[in-house]
């Protein structure tokens, strides 16, 4: 198969995949190629999409590469899809934000931060696979702990968790005397 280039191979593989493919994954599929060659081909495809007025672009999301339609074409695609575009209620976004930034986190912690019962929202986020049960926390009552999923990163076009938008830091309370980490919640016994 000397007449096809690595760029063509990678384009076709990424094209048919229904989920983002990491560089590692591509390297293991295309074992006869060097990692550096593969990386260079990906860069070339990315550049082609940008410069050649294409309708799709290659992006890095959830640790993998995926072709996606260009955001400015969303309007036309929605005509095709007819289905209601994904919508998130403020409460589910709030809950997701807390889980994303504080994971692993328990339901009690989420509810303390939001000030409201969040069971129904957790259930629906679990159903949508945006969050998952990571395990149980080793404290009395062994509450479930939650974290975000790959689907969460895919949905919000995040390269990885570290690329979550950074938040304005909370200024320490003036004169409050205690400089506890904001990671600690006064939750003991709240369960």
């Amino acid at each position, binding site marked *: 198969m000397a007449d096809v280039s690595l760029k063509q191979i990678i384009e076709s593989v990424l094209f048919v995949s229904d989920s983002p493919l990491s560089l590692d994954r591509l390297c293991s599929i295309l074992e006869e190629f060097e990692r550096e060659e593969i990386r260079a081909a990906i860069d070339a495809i990315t550049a082609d999409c940008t410069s050649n007025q294409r309708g799709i672009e290659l992006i890095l999301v959830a640790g993998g590469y995926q072709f996606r339609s260009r955001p400015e074409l969303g309007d036309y695609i929605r005509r095709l899809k007819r289905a209601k575009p994904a919508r998130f209620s403020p409460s589910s*976004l709030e809950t*997701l934000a807390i889980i994303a930034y504080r994971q692993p986190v328990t339901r009690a912690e989420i509810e303390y931060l939001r000030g409201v*019962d969040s069971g129904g929202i957790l259930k629906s986020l679990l159903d949508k696979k945006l969050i998952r049960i990571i395990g149980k926390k080793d404290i009395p009552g062994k509450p479930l702990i939650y974290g975000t*999923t790959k689907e969460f990163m*895919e949905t919000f076009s995040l390269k990885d968790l570290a690329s979550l938008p950074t*938040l304005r830091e909370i200024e320490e309370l003036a*004169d409050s005397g205690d400089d506890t980490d*904001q990671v600690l919640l006064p939750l003991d016994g709240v369960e």
Partner: protein
Amino acid sequence: MLPDPEQSPLFANDDPDSCLVRTEAFEGPLDLLLHLIKKNEVDIYNIPIAAISRQYLDYLDLMRELNLDVAGEFLVMASTLIQIKSQMLLPLTPDPESEEDQTLDPRAELVRRLLEYERYREASTLLASREILDRDVFARKFIPAELDTAAPDDALPEIDLFELVDAFRRILAKAPKDSFHEVGSENISIADRIADILAYLEEKETVDFEELFIGTNTREFIVASFLAVLELCKLRMIRLTQFENYGRILVNSTVIKDAA
């Protein structure tokens, strides 16, 4: 000039027709409080607690007047506010932990909560403004024809833990009623112990009963182990033998070794 918060009405309403708001716009008491703080243009680090709690309670009253359920969380916050308000009336207590001449502000914990809540709310708007898959951008999320025909593989499938529980939940929902019994954590640790004991017996054939209880000596563990032994006896997968009164009890595996 900041308006005097004590004078600023909550429901200042010049145009009654244009002022419908959804109660759900307040996700909870913290949301409502933040709204009141913004509306009154007061400093979050120096909340005029008396005025804000009065407005907060006004809002709850309004909800009740409209026969809306006031969620428990709103009431809990109301009592917190009242408590803070009464503490504010007392002379500030010096903080014994602090060498400096500092005092504990009764509002401190509430302020911290509000700030943190505000931070996550900000985070949620940042999330909402991202390019969301299936809203702003689209990918191919289906198995294309050229892959569909390829041979399936033997790799372990990916499942989420929640999917597993949820599947069990669905099963029980449609299963015949008499099969229903609560699956608690206790039940599961019994299953755990059954598996351990059988694995143990696979190597040793016959063991001392007490050997099965070696491990963590928590009450839970012992109870689970004991129930596991009983269950295994019931299933006749093990046999217990005792040589004399109060003597050692031996446990045998009766499992028929069988190549599956």
